[in-house]
Each structure stands twice: as C-alpha cells, then as structure tokens.
C-alpha cells in the first residue's frame, strides 16, 4: 500500500509555503529606508523615525537591528560584532536573528561582509566603498549632558549653538587636565552638526573621517537615525592647543598578535584581559582581525596587516 500525500487544499495553496519569520513588514522597512535617505542627505542630523518593537530590549541594539533589516538584501553578507567580537552573546544572537529573518549569508571576516552591524567598534581592517557600517546607538543626542529640554536641544542644533558643548570640554580640561570623555566623543560632521559617536572609542573616530564607506547610526529607544556618508568630514571637537588623542595604554601590545608592540608596524585598539595576578594582559578588541594576523604569522612568519610581529610564546607556532 502506498502512502498518498493528500493534495493541498485550494486555501493552503493560496497561503503559499511556510513563511519566513519576518520582523518588519515591507512598509516599515521602507519607512526606515526613507529616514536613512534623509540622514544621508543631511550628515549628522538626527532623523526621527517610527521605531518598532524588536525582539531585543530597546537600548540593546534595536535601532541598528531595524536599519540592518531594512537595508539588507538576499545577496548581502552580514557580520555582527559586539565589543569587537563576533562571538559575543549579543552579536551571535543578533546575527542569527537577522539571518533567520532575511536568509542572508553571515561571516565573521570583515573583508567578506557587505553589511557590518556593530556596537562599540569599527573593524580594524579599513572598510571599502561597497561595505555598509550599521552602529547601534544607545544615546544619539550629543548635547544631552548639557541640556535636557528637547525643544532647547533642537534649537541649539538648528542654530549651530554649540557653545555649551565647548564649555563642557573646557570644564573637563580644567577639572581633570585632560578631556575624559571617551566613548561618544562629540564630533562635528560636515562642518555643521555635532554628532554623538556614542558606542565607539576615540580610537575609531579617525576611521569615520572622509571614510570610503557609509556609516548609519540607529537608536531604537530614542527613535533616531543619523548617518555619515562617504568622504564626509568628521572632526572631533577639540581646542586648537589641545590635540585630540586616542586612547592607547603606554607600552601595551596584543599578547596574541603583537599589534602595538615596538616591532609591529601596526597598532590596534586593545582591551585588558582580567587577571587575578594584577599583571594586565592586553589583547586586540577586534578578534577577527587579531585571529587572522595570528594565523598568518604562524603560517608565513609575517602578519597580515603589517610587518613582522614580535615573537611570543602565545603565538601558536
């Protein structure tokens, strides 16, 4: 006796196959793309948009997630990083979520990706014109620290009235001798709007200045999208006689790939590994970049992105 597959009813045929779990409908995506286009047209200006509920808590990447879902197409390759890491819980979950909803391929290699969603970092490997950076922003308003009234904030942006932002830098210098603000360092975009670079360290800010790639910033909780188009000036606010400095601990180098050591031609943003002994060990924050350098070193004796690295017992020979 053969099992006869029951023919699908007319209603079932009309309904089509098993639907893909979509997080945003096409109209919502279009609305977000419209906000993105406005943001690209007015670099650094915070465009309000109708932020949707996402299956992640607001403030945990819902803004970046909505942009990614709205702009990603079936031939895109997605990379998601959190604190420079592809393997972080948040990064892994967001990557799976987007892949599940849109069916795109994923990667951890920065050079292979067409869309990179990130919190905290811009990959060390220089991005290309065909790549898109999506940053998850918790606090999009650079002036929030000096003014809380929204109407007044809008007026200040509209009139380029950034005196109080400068005063906060002045006060910081007077009180601490250095400008202490590190993530979210305020930058002037295209000579017009002051923008918060909330998630990224100062180290990454020069990568936004006249970059090859388009950067989109999404704040889901605050319902704002802003952008830095390619080849746009991004100047960190600083006084003429107080140079802008990136954070780099003295004498630290990555204990895996040797980046930042005197023998290494390259340096990268380093994070300290927690240790009980008190002797801090440093490691590249961008794990994908570091891993590939380490691999190249072990295979060819030279690292991928620079000159020879200092030999180290940790480098797996």
């Amino acid at each position: 006796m053969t099992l006869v597959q029951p023919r699908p009813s007319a209603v079932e045929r009309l309904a089509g196959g098993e639907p893909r779990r979509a997080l945003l409908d096409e109209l919502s995506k279009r609305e977000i793309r419209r906000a993105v286009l406005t943001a690209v047209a007015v670099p650094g200006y915070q465009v309000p948009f109708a932020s949707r509920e996402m299956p992640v808590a607001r403030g945990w990447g819902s803004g970046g997630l909505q942009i990614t879902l709205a702009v990603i197409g079936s031939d895109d390759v997605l990379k998601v990083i959190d604190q420079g890491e592809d393997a972080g819980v948040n990064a892994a979950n967001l990557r799976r979520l987007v892949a599940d909803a849109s069916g795109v391929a994923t990667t951890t290699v920065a050079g292979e990706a067409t869309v990179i969603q990130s919190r905290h970092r811009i990959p060390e490997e220089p991005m290309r014109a065909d790549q898109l950076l999506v940053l998850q922003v918790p606090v999009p308003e650079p002036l929030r620290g000096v003014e809380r009234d929204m109407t007044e904030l809008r007026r200040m942006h509209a009139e380029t009235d950034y005196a109080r932002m400068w005063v906060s830098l002045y006060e910081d210098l007077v009180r601490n001798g250095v400008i202490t603000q590190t993530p979210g360092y305020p930058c002037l975009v295209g000579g017009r709007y002051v923008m918060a670079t909330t998630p990224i360290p100062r180290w990454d800010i020069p990568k936004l200045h006249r970059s090859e790639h388009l950067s989109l910033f999404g704040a889901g909780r605050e319902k704002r999208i802003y952008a830095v188009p390619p080849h746009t000036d991004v100047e960190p606010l600083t006084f003429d006689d107080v140079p802008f400095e990136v954070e780099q601990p003295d004498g630290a180098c990555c204990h895996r790939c040797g980046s930042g050591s005197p023998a290494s031609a390259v340096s990268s943003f380093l994070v300290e590994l927690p240790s009980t002994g008190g002797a801090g060990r440093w490691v590249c924050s961008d794990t994908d970049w570091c891993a590939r350098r380490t691999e190249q070193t072990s295979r060819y004796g030279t690292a991928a992105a620079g000159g020879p690295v200092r030999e180290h017992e940790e480098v797996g020979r």
Partner: protein
Amino acid sequence: MTPALQVEGLGKIYGPGGAADVAGTGPDHGRVVSPSSGGVVAAWDVSFSVGAGEALGIIGESGSGKSTVLRCICGDETPTAGSIRLACVDGGGRDLTELGASARRALRIDRLAVVYQDPAEGLDLRLSAGGNVAERLTAAGWRNFGGIRSRAAELMRRTDVPLDRMDDPVKEFSGGMRQRVQLAKALANNPPVVLLDEPTTGLDASVAAAVLDLIRDLLDELGVAAVVVSHDFSVIELLTQRALVMQHGRVVEAGLTDQLLEDPQHPYSQRLVGAARG
C-alpha cells in the same frame, strides 16, 4: 552720529487686543489694565537714545514697566510696537524687532549684554566662573584653550573675582561674587551696549556699594552704552547721567539725573524722590 542704542515708541501689551488697548490706561487713569479688553499695557510709547560711554537710568516702582522695556530691548520679550536700533547692527539702519529669534539671540553674544538682578538667570550656577565666561567666548568662536583661560582670568581680575576661585562652581559663591561673575560674563566679548536690570538689588549694602563702584569704573573705562534699570535712586545717581521716570507703563519725566533728583517736575517723580530722600 548714530547713538549706540536708539529706542522709539516702544510698547508691550500682554493679552488680547492691540494698540486699541492703550486708551484708558497710563498715569492719567492710574491703571495699566485696559478697561475695554483686559489687556495689560506694560509699557507704551517709550523712546530714548544712549550714546557710547553714556549711561541712562530708568526709575520707577515695581510694575511701572521698566524691566519690560529692558526685556524687550534684549530680546527676552517681543515688543508690541516700536523700534530698537543698535549702531553696531547695519549702522543703526536695522530695526531689531524685525529680526528673527535666532538673529536676536546671536546679538547677545557680542553686541548686547544683559546683567540680571538674579545671577541664576544670567549664569549657569553648575559651571565654574571661568566656564561661564568661556560660554560667551566659545559662542563667539574662541577655540584656543589657553586663550580662553587668559581672557577669563583677565575678566576675573577686572571684576575683582579672586583668581583662585575661577575654577570653582558659581553655586559655591556668595551673592556679590556671583554678580561680579555675571558682569565678567556680560563683558566677555566687549559688547558696545550693556543692559543692567537691578544689578545690586538683593545684595547687602556694603557689597552693593562695592559692586556699584565696580560697575561705574567699568562703564567709564570701557566706554559702553549702558541702560540701568533700578528702583533705587542711589544706584541711578551713582551710575547714570540721564534718567527716565516711569509710571503705569509710561515715561512721565526725562532729564539729567542730577536735575531730576534735585528738582523733580512731575508729581509722581516728586513723590518718588521725596520717599527716597526722606
């Protein structure tokens, strides 16, 4: 020569109606509330001009409209009628009331400074004294930290604020010192016109006297055009050469300060002077 500040026919009416509300108000009727519409005629038909290096006083009791006039000039209020001209804006050819809100605010950076009675209105009390001055300087485009520091220190020296307090938050300062910091901030970009609204009211007598001396010295030294609003005759007498007396929103008498105090003509002025002189 165009006067540094020229005000003509300035009027401010709160509430409904317009120029029609003026009927039935003023000193002759002893009221500022319009009998027809209930609108408040806070000031009407106020005209004067102040030259560089000159100080004009406006005297009157509470509610006489003197502060309203000042707030209309500086842009905190929009006048209902009249024109305001500054020599430093298009050579006096432009009526400030025609300017947009943002252009009005821009004037406050380096052309038209105000010293309020309450330092909290003119200062950010959370910031340091130097930071308050720096706000004006950075608004005017100063971007050199060393330059801002030395300019702020110079202003502190001029306004007798101890230099070692320059980096302390203003909220830790006494009333007199706050007022000095407010002066330093107002003068940061050498504005040609300075408006002072009851600058020493609320200070105790000895501190007020010291602040007054300071203001007088600064006005003499900097050659700015100043308008001083006060209900206190000693302030007006010390700081100004000419004065207006206001009552119920109108100017009832104008003249040289000395003459006005020695020989007041209007009955209201006589009452005011009499009350002040005992």
